[in-house]
């Protein structure tokens, strides 16, 4: 086992897969020079310009061309430089990639990975901080993952590349260099689908993913010192969603906090609440609480505003205390 940062884990995962299978290639803006977050650093030398393809500045074409290549036998990994810039590719992702299998009754399929850095807390302001998972996790035919640990980033990027269907691979950019943990040496996969209980607890459950997962773990640690036992579930795959793990934990503690960084209203956490309110209702001991970003354009730049926006360990701890006391 070696320590790896998130960005290293993504890079290693792609590099190992590309070494083993020359159908795999990356395309996107500035990928040849390594990419703005250095995810493809060294790839040009290792794999050459045909497998590390610098595209024009046109996101719809990045995804659209990747779809075409996937239909003709390649395994594209499309990089969208920031999740905030994926919107022009929405039509290609929703109308095309996610529906090719369905609309051809399985005759075609679209094995495509779209990687993109999302999330805030890095002074990225309105257009370098967005959460996009609620939009995409709503789309049948697409898979959406939001890992939080280097081990999962590496294991899930490999699963995503091997997946016969399109996968939106969301990388929280604040984790890239701030989280560095052990990653197995062998060639492993982390399956897309299962959630994982990161911390067992008895009194209350926190559901989170991405950066918020880490904030939740910090909060749970704080609360442990106060005699409150919080279970923390890592929703690392939003679509497919692991209802079983969610419901088991909800039933176990009966008190639920759903944390997400996106704007509150219509965020993906609403789905978690709704599932629990329908399927674990009898087990609930308290209202299902959501803690999320306020309903303002995500997210302003000046540090006081950004800090105001971001849910964090402190706010999570406060919400947990209130829930525990309910």
């Amino acid at each position, binding site marked *: 086992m070696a320590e790896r940062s998130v960005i290293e884990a993504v890079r290693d995962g792609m590099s190992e897969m590309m070494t083993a299978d020359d159908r795999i290639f990356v395309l996107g803006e500035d990928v040849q020079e390594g990419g703005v977050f250095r995810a493809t650093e060294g790839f040009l030398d290792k794999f050459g310009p045909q497998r590390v393809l610098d595209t024009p500045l046109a996101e719809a074409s990045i995804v659209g061309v990747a779809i075409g290549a996937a239909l*003709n036998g390649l395994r594209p990994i499309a990089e969208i430089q920031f999740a905030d810039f994926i919107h022009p590719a929405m039509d290609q992702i929703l109308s095309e990639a996610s529906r090719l299998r369905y609309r051809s009754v399985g005759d*075609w399929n679209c094995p495509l990975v779209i990687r993109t850095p999302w999330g805030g807390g890095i002074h990225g302001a309105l257009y370098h901080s967005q959460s996009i998972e609620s939009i995409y996790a709503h789309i049948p035919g697409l898979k959406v993952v939001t890992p939080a640990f280097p081990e999962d980033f590496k294991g899930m990027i490999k699963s995503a590349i091997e997946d016969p269907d399109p996968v939106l691979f969301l990388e929280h950019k604040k984790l890239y260099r701030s989280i560095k943990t052990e990653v197995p040496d062998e060639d492993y996969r982390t399956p897309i689908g299962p959630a994982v209980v990161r911390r067992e607890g008895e009194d209350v459950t926190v559901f989170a993913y991405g950066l918020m997962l880490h904030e939740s773990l910090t909060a749970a640690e704080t609360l442990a010192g106060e005699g409150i036992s919080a279970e923390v579930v890592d929703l690392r795959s939003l679509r497919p969603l692991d209802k079983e793990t969610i419901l088991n934990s909800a039933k176990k503690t009966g008190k639920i906090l759903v944390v997400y960084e996106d704007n509150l209203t219509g965020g993906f956490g609403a789905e978690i609440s709704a599932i629990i309110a329908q399927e674990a209702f009898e087990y609930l001991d308290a209202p299902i609480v959501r803690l999320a970003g306020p309903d303002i354009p995500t997210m302003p730049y000046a540090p006081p505003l950004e800090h105001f926006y971001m849910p964090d360990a402190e706010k999570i701890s406060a919400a947990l205390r209130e829930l525990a006391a309910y």
Partner: protein
Amino acid sequence: MVKANERPARTRKGGVASHLGLENERLVELYRTMLASRLIQDRMFVLQRQGRAAFAITGQGHEAAQVGSAAALRPGTDWVIPYYRDVGVCLTMGMTAREIMLDFLARAEGPCSGGRQMPTHWSKRELNIVSGSSPVGTQILHAPGVAWASKVRKEKAVTAVYFGEGATSTGEFHEGLNFAAIHKLPVIFFCENNGYAISEASEKQMAVKHVADRAKGYNIEGIMMDGNDLIAVYQNMAWAAEECRGGRGPKLLEAKTYRIVPHSSDDDDRRYRSREELAEWMKKDPIDRTKRYLIEHDALTEEQDEAIRKEVEELVREAVDYALGQPMPEPETALEHVYAEEVS
């Protein structure tokens, strides 16, 4: 309005033996495909009016453009990315009347979508016919992707993507041509310019006179042709395909034509175009024109034509009867094929 393009040096003078590589037999075969295309589509409208289909969108009038262009491609080797009007393209590439009717009538057995998509949303993997959707223009971006894969594997396959002139207004058109041009990909961008996007005349789509003029922004060749001239279309397409195979792609081809039917079964075209205009174009009907050409060049007799018509009519009748006898998909099958295996 339509100036024939001069680019391919060969001309079509000189009689049957030199239809630019098209032997008499092949020409008659293409004529037969055009006829099949026409009759299938006419029948679609009838079926729709009879309440047997909810919707029909067809391309009567485009037959020369469609059949002539697809005839220059190699089925199963080259790739086609058709749009909704392309009955003639798909027939030429090997789809059968039966298959087309199965999909038109939303039958489970339909190869394109088994009743999931609207009619004439083509797909057949075996034939390298890429599945299409309804949003205009999205398919244009798939072409450079498909061609990129062919190029990477050093295959000599050509990718032809079809669309109307309205589609050239989309961002996808620009991004698709730009990408293909930068990488000199073997893509033929084939525009069936019928002068209208639903009700909008092409002056509302572009300030250039011809779609072919748009090629200049990408440093590629744009070729305009009489889209109702089967041989001219074939000639230009064959040239473009050769160019692509030789690494001198992409090309933008524009076939000037006209749809002699409303936009779809929901449309009333009298709202936006005159009956006189329609009548003018009816005179240029590509089926009649091809027939006249074949007869003039002794490639066809009236009797043979009669026989072909009968045969095609029978083919279409059989296809419709067969399709009508097949079941629609079972309700619960709606849940299938969202992912490779079902996930929760």
